């Protein structure tokens, strides 16, 4: 694997992992008030599990360590109870269980994902500049 390609692969793996994280945050925010899901019960907060991913080695034997999302974990935190007897999903006491999603947490999560994504973009930008300066070596006149 060419070193520059390896670096871009690493950055790309980071970008796609962060994108999935934002996707899950969006899903959590959109479903913050969903009381019915296919599995029954209210929606549960979803979060990605990150793990290192060995993409191979460069010609010089430097490990190429990317990142991958190995799974999506459903949070088992307690649901948020609200008193609303007129709600169709209210129990005998008139309490409705709302999803265990905290919008503030999700916002922080999204900001963090955005920053990490930007870091990977910065890597790709830097590598592109490096490639250009390597190509400049051919222009000796």
């Amino acid at each position, binding site marked *: 694997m060419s070193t520059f390609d390896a670096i871009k692969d690493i950055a790309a793996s980071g970008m796609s992992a962060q994108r999935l994280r934002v996707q899950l945050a969006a899903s959590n925010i959109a479903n913050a008030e969903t009381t019915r899901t296919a599995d029954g019960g209210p929606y549960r907060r979803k979060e990605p599990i990150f793990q290192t991913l060995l993409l191979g080695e460069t010609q010089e034997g430097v490990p190429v360590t990317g990142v991958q999302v190995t799974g999506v974990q459903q949070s088992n935190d307690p649901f948020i109870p609200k008193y609303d007897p007129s709600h169709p999903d209210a129990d005998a006491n008139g309490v409705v269980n709302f999803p265990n999603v905290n919008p503030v947490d999700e916002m922080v999560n999204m900001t963090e994902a955005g920053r990490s994504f930007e*870091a990977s973009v910065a*890597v790709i930008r830097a590598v592109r500049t490096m490639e250009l300066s390597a190509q400049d070596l051919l222009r000796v006149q």
Partner: protein
Amino acid sequence: MFDLVSGNSMIQMMDRSMTLATRRMTLIAANLANIDTPNYHTQDFSFEKAFKQSMAELDGQLSPTSSSLPSYFPSASTATVPTTNDDAPPAYERNDLNDVNLDQQTELLAKTQNIYQLSSEFAQNELRTVLGAIRDAGK
């Protein structure tokens, strides 16, 4: 046949410096991709130490008699992989055992990119000088 490049210590030096810079870049990219991976430890090596080591190796090789041998060039881009992996200080503000520091890595990214460009610039300059010498000789 004359070999104007592999016997030129300036170009050799810059070649190694660029090789080391891309190597470090691979590690920085890995650190930034894994900035949110639990239990991940920062990977890095000391550029200065590695470069000094390469220079020491180069000094041994650059004898004028061997420079015209065809087999002379093989180790040029296979400078030994520096294995120094100094432990980064633990990040106490995090609780996922990940010690990647975004600011530090971003700074290293810019620094490494600059080293690469500077080396490339120097190598190009040297190549220009060589070319100029050849041209002048032809006049």
